[in-house]
């Protein structure tokens, strides 16, 4: 290792610790993204563009507002306006989204000129196909950091990147500590759980026209494991795929979770199906739709601990008794500086729809 390299690492480490002091400072800082690239910033980033969908809301969370989010992916804006962030921060609707080249379906191919015109300090880009999506930005001299999706360790690295680059390590540390505390609390409540006590959980992020499940390496699979369940689709080749109704019956899950992505998807998709209504999950009324708060609760985000608590409570109502509504109020105050109304919390938890499910009364307002 050269002297220069070790000096850089020391510097970036110093910046991370220095940031813990809280206040945004004007010193240059260096952050390292998950692909190992170092990004130098003259000062904490104040004009940020985010392309990977869930992480736009993380910028809002770190800042406690939308001022520093200069542009985002159209899908991220849709999710924010659908969820509660659009209500918390009415300015959301004015944030531009025309930064994707070749339309939304091209995913993350950046419209370099549109991005450059917004004069960002930092662009956060998906690093999965680096040459196609990251290189055009760096070639144009735009400061770019990459994010890769994965399990919790990557989620933490992504959050650390955003928090550090924004000079908000105070918020970051609070959020990371909350993740540690929640993981630990769930672990304690589920201590001594035998494999036989772990319900079989099926999660579908899409149901039309076919059911789509996630396998090994997915964030949802990791969450199910944390919450004391077994992901039935762990063995799915290639991470995710279409599964037939017969395959779902062969798995015979104890609990079915429906993703928050599909518009208009209801738990009746399972209850009204002549075959799926005969699965254990449907018979025991254990079909639930995953909540959407400031971010969707199934992919990794600043709100993940709420998702873990919710899921652990769904899977083990006899052992786990978090006050989810109280947690939402407390944490939304800390994260977004906002106070959700009871009706808004009901909407986040899909209360009217999910209340047909077993034990969902525990999430109702007392």
């Amino acid at each position, binding site marked *: 290792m050269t002297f220069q390299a070790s000096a850089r690492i020391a510097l970036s480490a110093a910046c991370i610790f220095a940031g813990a002091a809280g206040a945004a400072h004007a010193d240059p800082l260096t952050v390292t993204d998950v692909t190992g690239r170092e990004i130098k910033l003259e000062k904490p980033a104040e004009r940020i563009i985010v392309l990977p*969908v869930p992480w736009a809301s993380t910028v809002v969370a770190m800042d406690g507002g939308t001022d520093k989010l200069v542009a985002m992916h159209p*899908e991220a804006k*849709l999710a924010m306006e659908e969820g509660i962030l659009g209500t918390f921060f009415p300015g959301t609707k004015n944030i531009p989204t025309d930064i994707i080249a*070749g*339309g*939304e*379906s*091209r*995913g993350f191919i950046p419209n370099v000129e549109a991005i450059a015109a917004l004069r960002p300090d930092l662009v956060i880009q998906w690093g999965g196909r680096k040459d196609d999506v990251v290189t055009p930005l760096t070639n144009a001299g735009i400061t770019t950091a990459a994010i890769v999706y994965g399990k919790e360790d990557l989620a933490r690295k992504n959050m650390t990147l955003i928090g550090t680059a924004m000079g908000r390590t105070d918020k970051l540390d609070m959020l990371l500590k909350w993740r540690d505390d929640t993981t630990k609390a769930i672990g304690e409540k589920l201590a001594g759980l035998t494999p036989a006590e772990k319900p079989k959980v099926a999660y579908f992020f*899409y149901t*039309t*026209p*076919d*059911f*789509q*499940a996630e*396998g090994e390496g997915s964030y949802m699979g990791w969450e199910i494991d944390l919450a004391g369940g077994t992901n039935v*689709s762990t*063995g*799915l*080749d*290639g991470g*995710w*795929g*279409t*599964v*037939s*109704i*017969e*395959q779902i*019956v*062969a798995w015979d899950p104890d609990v079915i979770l429906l993703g928050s*992505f*599909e*518009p*208009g998807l209801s738990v009746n998709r399972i209850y009204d199906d*002549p*075959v799926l209504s*005969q699965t254990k999950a449907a018979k025991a009324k254990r079909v639930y739709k995953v909540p959407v708060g400031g971010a969707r609760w199934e992919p990794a985000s600043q709100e993940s601990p709420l998702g873990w608590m919710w899921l652990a409570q769904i899977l083990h109502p006899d052992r786990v008794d978090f006050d989810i509504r109280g947690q939402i109020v407390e944490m939304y105050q800390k994260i977004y500086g906002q106070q959700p109304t009871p009706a808004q919390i009901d909407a986040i938890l899909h209360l009217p729809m999910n209340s047909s499910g077993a034990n969902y009364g525990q999430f109702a307002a007392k």
Partner: protein
Amino acid sequence: MDLSAATPATGIWRRLEGGGLWLAVFAFLLLAAMLAGICMGRLSIAPAAVLDIIMTQWWPGGSHDWTKLQESIVVLVRAPRIVIAALSGIGMAMAGAALQGLFRNPLVSPDILGITAGAAFGGALAILLGGSGMVLIGLAFALGIAALVLVGLLSRVDGRSDTMTVVLAGIVVGAMFTAFVSLVQFVADPDSTLPAIVGWLMGSFAATTWTRVAIATPPILIGILGLLMLRFRVNILSLGEDEAQSFGISVQRERWIIFLLSTLIAGGVVSVAGIVGWVGLVIPHAARLLVGPDHRILIPAAGLLGGAYLVMIDTVARNATAAEIPLGVLTAAIGAPVFAILLRRVYVSGIRA
């Protein structure tokens, strides 16, 4: 009219007898594939129980040695899938055989008339607009027909259209609708509708229900029966325009009837299963190599073989892994090498002879 009267009887009859044998073999193959298909699945149910469940649907009684869930799987999940796979395979292969004869061109399949592309655009559009079920099937079907009408209008010069202009018009219309499909994908929401469109376009029977079977069956069945009834005419039409005219049939009218029947089949198949490629191209060739070029035998033979092929492919798609393998991938991946071997054999034997 009876074509056999117009040709040396001995040759035709020998062929018919040989063909009859092949028909029986293919019919047996189709039945065997369907039986094997219904007994196999990700949920293991004893074949005896499966057969018992099927029998009980018509003749109540039996041992009832199964659960209600197993019955639902066999009756509501496997059976409609196998029926629609068989019908689709029969229809696409027959349409392919008829069109190849009509155009006297071995590279023709229902795709060439732009029908598949039109129907694909309809389906993609329906998913984009948030439609499913009837809306999807209806739009796919309507645009398949629209593509055919467009081809008809484009290729019509002085009240008639020759095969070359029809093929060219089909390619043009197909390219246009393919571009529209790309446009739909371009504006589709990448997190929600886009995966649904891509998955549907790759072809899958995974979402088949009896309702879908009921919607898709009439057009496919009309197409199949129509082609069976007209299979003599395909023989004549395949002689070429002038010769066919000399037999006293209206070439233009007959040709468009066959196009329409093919559209009914392709539209019905695409609307329920997305694009199931290769069957309409490869199976007619395989059948022709085995039974010869007489369409009276070739069309039903291709149909039976196509049905058996698609049922087998779908059984693999359902069973091989927990995730469904897209049909389009399998039909091409298994179809291409089989086709290559068949072609090699014919050409090698042709050269050596």
